[in-house]
């Protein structure tokens, strides 16, 4: 039982408010991903849960216990630090074993766990090295292995795979998911990699400026952003937005195109994901500005109605800067947002 409940937590650094009254419940064994812009307070939130930072207000409960005043070691957590904090004076082996030694596990158990997690992280041949003799990615994996070896109730990971190459990250991601699911750990995972977020998360919490904007399943967050921010933040490249003006009941004029939309409201924003656009005879009149090959696809940044507009097109399609295109949105993928509040409309 390691449900995490965060009640009305805020954190101020001097006059700067890093977290505004956060309420969040992470169910036992849930894998919660925190997503948000740089500096939005993700690390601060993790540190408050870990007990490394005292919240300016609010309560933190873990597994039904209020833990605000408990030191980190009594909270049953392990953490992967954003800057690793791998002990420079210990070998990789001893780094990973650190928490186990604190628990006074027998040597055989320590050996077994260290070797297991090191293997998982592909650092088994580095066990004798010191952190100063590791590459950035290797150091990061030591940090992850150190946390995993603890087999804690709650694991907090702050961008744990950010310095790994795509291939390794893919592997690690799968391993992590497997290990954490088996060990019945509750996980809070900060990442900037949306693919990672999507593929790992049971739920994603999207943070913005010290607040949680949406906490929902990955598909929900991607398909049904609760706010303009979520749409603009998630998706790579992010959603396109265009101002929409009511032309008739349930009909909206968007950059010269008439699109059916919500009945209510009068100042809305039309939103569509770049991959939900196709080149067709009908659609937004667009002028290609930048063409970036991404391998399987091509990212075209175009101008639509004087606004920047991105489309992910098949790379077979030859587009050059300056070309005129017609981009047609898939009707069922269109989203609408209130232009004032930024919240989803319709």
């Amino acid at each position, binding site marked *: 039982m390691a449900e995490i409940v965060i009640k009305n937590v805020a954190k101020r650094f001097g006059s700067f408010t890093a977290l505004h009254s956060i309420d969040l419940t992470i169910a036992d064994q849930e894998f919660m991903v925190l997503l948000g812009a740089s500096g939005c307070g993700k690390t601060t939130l993790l540190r408050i849960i870990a007990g490394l930072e005292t919240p300016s207000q609010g309560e933190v409960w873990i597994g039904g216990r209020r833990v605000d005043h408990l030191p980190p070691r009594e909270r049953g957590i392990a953490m992967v630090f954003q800057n690793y904090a791998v002990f420079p004076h*210990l070998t990789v082996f001893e780094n990973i074993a650190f928490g186990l030694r604190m628990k006074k596990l027998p040597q055989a158990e320590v050996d077994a766990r260290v070797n297991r997690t090191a293997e998982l992280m592909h650092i088994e041949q580095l066990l004798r090295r010191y952190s*100063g003799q590791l590459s950035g990615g290797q150091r990061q994996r030591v940090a992850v292995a150190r946390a995993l070896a603890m087999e804690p109730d709650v694991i907090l990971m702050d961008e744990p795979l950010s310095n790994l190459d795509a291939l390794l990250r893919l592997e690690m991601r799968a391993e992590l998911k497997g290990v954490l699911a088996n060990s019945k750990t509750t996980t809070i995972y900060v990442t900037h990699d949306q693919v990672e977020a999507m593929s790992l998360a049971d739920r994603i919490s999207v943070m913005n400026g010290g607040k949680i904007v949406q906490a929902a399943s990955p598909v929900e967050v991607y398909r049904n952003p609760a706010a303009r921010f979520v749409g603009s933040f998630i998706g790579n490249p992010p959603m396109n937005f265009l101002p929409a003006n009511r032309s008739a009941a349930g009909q909206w004029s968007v950059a010269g195109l008439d699109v059916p939309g919500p009945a209510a409201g009068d100042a809305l924003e039309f939103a569509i994901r770049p991959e939900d656009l196709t080149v067709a005879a009908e659609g937004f009149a667009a002028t290609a500005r930048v063409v970036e090959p991404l391998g399987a696809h091509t990212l075209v940044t175009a101008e639509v109605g004087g606004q920047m507009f991105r489309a992910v097109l098949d790379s077979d399609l030859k587009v050059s800067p300056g070309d005129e295109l017609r981009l047609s949105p898939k009707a069922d993928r269109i989203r609408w947002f209130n232009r004032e509040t930024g919240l989803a409309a319709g």
Partner: protein
Amino acid sequence: MPARFLPYLMLLPATIFLLVFFVYPFIQIAILAVTQDGGFSLQPITTMATHWKFNAALGWTVLLAAVVVPLQLVMALSMATIVTKLKTGRSTILYIFSIPLGLSDLAAGIVWLAIFEQSGFLNSMLAGLGVIEQPILFLGYQNIWVIFLAVVLAELWRATAIVMVILVSGMGLIPKEYYEAGEVFGANGWQRFWRITLPLLRPSLQSALILRTLAAFEVFAVVTALGGTTLPVLMGETFNWQFAMQDRNVASAYALVILGISIAATLFFLRALRVPKGATI
């Protein structure tokens, strides 16, 4: 390739300086230990080694260092830890803790003599409390262990600050992220101290211990002030041979003994507190 010579370049001023102002006179003196009337002779060393006080002086000196230095280390570590932890009043307390830094051993001897003397403060206090009728003679020659204890106290009082300040400045350089990681991984305060602070403090510990042990081997003024010649120490014997007996050859032999045990202690600390290659911050 200038880069290869850079370290030597940086050592150059210190080396030249020490060659002129230390090594040159040192050699002149050290030679005396193995000469007699201008010729090579082991006589000074034999004289020293067979002198009836030599063993006692060596023994007490080493024992004193062996008792004082570890105690001092423990005290300095606790003081440094307290000072680093404090949020309020930190600079005042650091100031108080570092006061003995400014005291010469002569002054320290005087201070503690005022306490332990027969008509001193300790006796005054005990008499005031009615514990004793007659003042107790603490520093009498029969109470060599009391004298020893008094010397230990005085040395602890006088020279702990040096160790502390070195450790405090070393602790200030340990990044706090390592403490946080330690906390998260279940280390309590004591364990963090033991497993993070101490190992990361190795360079400072090494320096502090070396400097302190060397000073302990040269202890003299405090011992004389408190124990007269009852508690013979190497440095005292060196002085005695040099100035009272005017036998500079034997004095030099004594000095070489001090040098020898100092180097042995230094080598020990260099090995014991070595930071393995790659394990630096």
